C-alpha cells in the first residue's frame, strides 16, 4: 500500500525574519501589511459564508479554504493584472487575493443578479473574464486541460503574460495533469502550475491515493522544473511565485509547484470529517498561516497589536458590507433563465 506521507524537505527556506525577507523581495512594510489584510479578508469572507449557510441563506454547496490563505495571498500578490488566473472549485481565496470585488463575490454566493456571474455560477464558478480571471471549474482538473491553450494564446500574441493555473492534490491524479504539463513542456508555454496540497481530496489522504509524493517528480519527468514548498508561509510562497512567474514570463517555459497546506474545515457541507482525527486538525490549526504571519509581523515591529485589531474590525466590516450589498440585491429574473447560453 502506498502511504508515503509527505516528508520531503522543503525546496524553500522558512521565513523567520519578516524584515530581512521583505528587503530581499523588495517589499515595503505597507506591502506586508496589505498581504496580511488580504489573508484576514479571505478568512472573514469564508467564516461569513459558513454563517450564511448556517442561517439557510445559501442553497447549494461551497468549498472553503480556511487555513490555506497564505497560498492565495502569496500567489495573488504575484499575479499582475495582465496575467491570467485559471481556478478550481476551492477558489474564494485566490479571487480575493487577486483583487476581486467581495461585494460581487458575496452576491454571487447568494445567487443574486449583481454577482459576478449574475447568480448563474455560484460559489464554485466565480469568474471575471474581462479582468483576466478566467473562472473556476467544478470538474476537478478541467482547468488544467485548459491551461496550455491560454499559454498558446500568450505565445502567439507575443505578450509577456503568464497563465497561473490552480488545482488541488487530488487533481494531480487526473490524467489531464500529464497531458497538460507535457504539452506545456514541449512548447515551453508560459504556464505556472500551482498545486495546492491541502492533504486531502475530499476524504482521500494524498499519500493513500498517490503512488509517490510530493508530486514534483511528476513534473520533472515531463521536463518541467518541479518544487515542493511550505504553503503556510506567505512570504515563502510569494518569493517562490515571483521566481516562477519571471521564469515563465521570460520565455523559459512552465514551472510546477506544490504548496503544502491544510484544509481545516470539511471538504464541503456534507463532510462529517470521519476520515481524519480531531488531533490532526488541531495540530494544523496551530500552524494557522494568518497567526503565523501576524506573529512574524509583530515580532519584526512591522505591525502593532492595535493595528491587528483594527484590521480585524476593518475586514469584518468589509464583509458585512458585502453581505448587505448581496442581500439587498435582486434575484435574477426567472424569464431570463435561457439568457447567455449562446453568444
Amino acid at each position, binding site marked *: 500500500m502506498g502511504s508515503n506521507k509527505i516528508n520531503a524537505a522543503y525546496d524553500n527556506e522558512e521565513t523567520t525574519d519578516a524584515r530581512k525577507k521583505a528587503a530581499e523581495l523588495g517589499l515595503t512594510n505597507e506591502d506586508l501589511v496589505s498581504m496580511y489584510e488580504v489573508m484576514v479578508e479571505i478568512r472573514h469572507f469564508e467564516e461569513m459564508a459558513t454563517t450564511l449557510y448556517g442561517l439557510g441563506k*445559501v*442553497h*447549494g*454547496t461551497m468549498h472553503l479554504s480556511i487555513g490555506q490563505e497564505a497560498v492565495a495571498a502569496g500567489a495573488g500578490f504575484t499575479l499582475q493584472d495582465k496575467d491570467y488566473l485559471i481556478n478550481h472549485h476551492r477558489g474564494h481565496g485566490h479571487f480575493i487575493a487577486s483583487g476581486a470585488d467581495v461585494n460581487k463575490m458575496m452576491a454571487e454566493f447568494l*445567487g*443574486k443578479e449583481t454577482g459576478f*456571474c449574475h*447568480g*448563474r*455560477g*455560484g460559489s*464554485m*464558478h466565480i469568474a471575471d473574464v474581462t479582468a483576466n480571471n478566467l473562472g473556476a*471549474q*467544478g*470538474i*476537478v*482538473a478541467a482547468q488544467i486541460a485548459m491551461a496550455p491553450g491560454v499559454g498558446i494564446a500568450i505565445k502567439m500574441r507575443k505578450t509577456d503574460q503568464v497563465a497561473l493555473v490552480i488545482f488541488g492534490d*487530488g*487533481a494531480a*491524479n*487526473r*490524467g489531464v495533469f500529464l497531458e497538460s504539463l507535457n504539452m506545456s513542456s514541449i512548447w515551453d508555454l508560459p504556464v505556472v502550475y500551482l498545486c495546492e496540497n491541502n492533504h486531502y*481530496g*475530499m*476524504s*482521500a489522504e494524498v499519500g*493513500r*491515493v*498517490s503512488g509517490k509524493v510530493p508530486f514534483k517528480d511528476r513534473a520533472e519527468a515531463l521536463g518541467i522544473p518541479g518544487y515542493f514548498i511550505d504553503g503556510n508561509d506567505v512570504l515563502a510562497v510569494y518569493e517562490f511565485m515571483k521566481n516562477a512567474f519571471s521564469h515563465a514570463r521570460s520565455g523559459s517555459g512552465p514551472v510546477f509547484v506544490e504548496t503544502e497546506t491544510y484544509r481545516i474545515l470539511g471538504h464541503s457541507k*456534507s*463532510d462529517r470529517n*470521519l*476520515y481524519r482525527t480531531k488531533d490532526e486538525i488541531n495540530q494544523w490549526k496551530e500552524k494557522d498561516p494568518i497567526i503565523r504571519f501576524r506573529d512574524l509581523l509583530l515580532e519584526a515591529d512591522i505591525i502593532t497589536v492595535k493595528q491587528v485589531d483594527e484590521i480585524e474590525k476593518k475586514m469584518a466590516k468589509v464583509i458585512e458590507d458585502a453581505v448587505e450589498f448581496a442581500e439587498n440585491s435582486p*434575484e*435574477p429574473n*426567472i424569464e*431570463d*433563465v*435561457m439568457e447567455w*447560453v449562446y453568444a
Partner: protein
Amino acid sequence: MPEITFRQAIHDALVEEMRRDSSVFLIGEDIGTYGGAFGVTAGILDEFGRDRVWETPISEETIVGSAVGAAIVGMKPIAEIMFMDFLTLVLDPLANQAAKVRYMFGGKATVPMVVRMPSGSGTGAAAHHSQSLETILMHIPGLKVVAPSTPYDAKGLLLSAIRDPNPVCFVEHKLLYKTKGEVPNGEYTIPLGVADIKREGTDLTIVTSEIMVHKSLSAAEDVSKEGISVEILDPRTLLPLDVDTITNSVMKTGRLLVVHEAVKTAGWAGEIMASVSESPAWDYLDAPMRRLTGKDVPIPYNRFLERAAVPQEEDIVREIQAIVSNQY
C-alpha cells in the same frame, strides 16, 4: 412492508449482493469512510474491507476502465461516478470498451459491470453537478440504462443490474435519496427492460422517470379533480425500452406526454415518440405527442432559476390540461 429510503434500498442491494457473490466489488472515489458523496456506501468498507472496496484517486476514466478490465476476466465490479456530470470523463471506457468489446470480439467477451451515477438538479450545485445525461447512454448499443424512481424499484433493479452479464448504467436522481417507500425484507429482483404503470388512467399517458414520476403523480392527482384521468408509465429501464407497454398504454389513452428533466433537444422524449410513431399506437393518437423537458440550458445556480430550468408540477398540470383540451 418496512419503509426505507431510496438511499438505503441501494445500499442494501449492494451489501446483500456483496455477501452473496464474492466477485462483486465496489470501486470509486470516497466510497469508504466517507460513504460516497451521498452516503450510499456508508459502512460497507467496515464490513468488507479494502479487498472489496477499492477507494480510488480522482481518476474517473481509469475507474471505469478498470471496471471493464475486471469484468472481462469475470469479476462483477460496481463503479461509482460521484456525479453523472462526469460521464464526460468515462464515456470512452463505457461506450468504446464496455459496450463494444463483446461485439468487436465476436461474442467472446462478457462485461458484467454496473456504473452508478447520481444525476439531476435541485441541490444548488450548478452546471457541473446537476445534469441528466441518460439520453447519451441510451444512444450506445451494448449498454443498458436503468433509472429507478422508488426505493422498491431501486433495490430490485440494482440486484438485476449486478447480475446482468452486460454493462449497466444505474442512474440515481439525487433528490430521490431521501424519499421513502415500502421495500420487502429479503431478496427480490425486478427484470431489466420492463416498464411499470405507476398510476392507471384513460385520458393521457405520461411516460416519465426518476424524480419526474413523483412530480407527474402529483400533477395527475391535481387534474383528477377536473375529471382528467392520467396514466403514469415509468419505463424504469431506459435501454432497452419496454416499447410494448408504452404503445399499449397509448393505444388505451390516445394521448402521449413525455416528461423528463434532461434538456429538450435530442432528449429521450424523441425516442419515445419515434417508437410510438413506428408502432400500431400511431393510429390511436387523438392528439399530437408532446414533451415537457428541461430547458436547453446548463443548470443555473440560483434556486429560482434552477427551479425554472426543469419541469415542475404546475408545468405538468398545465401541459396535461392543454393536451386534453387540444390547446397547445
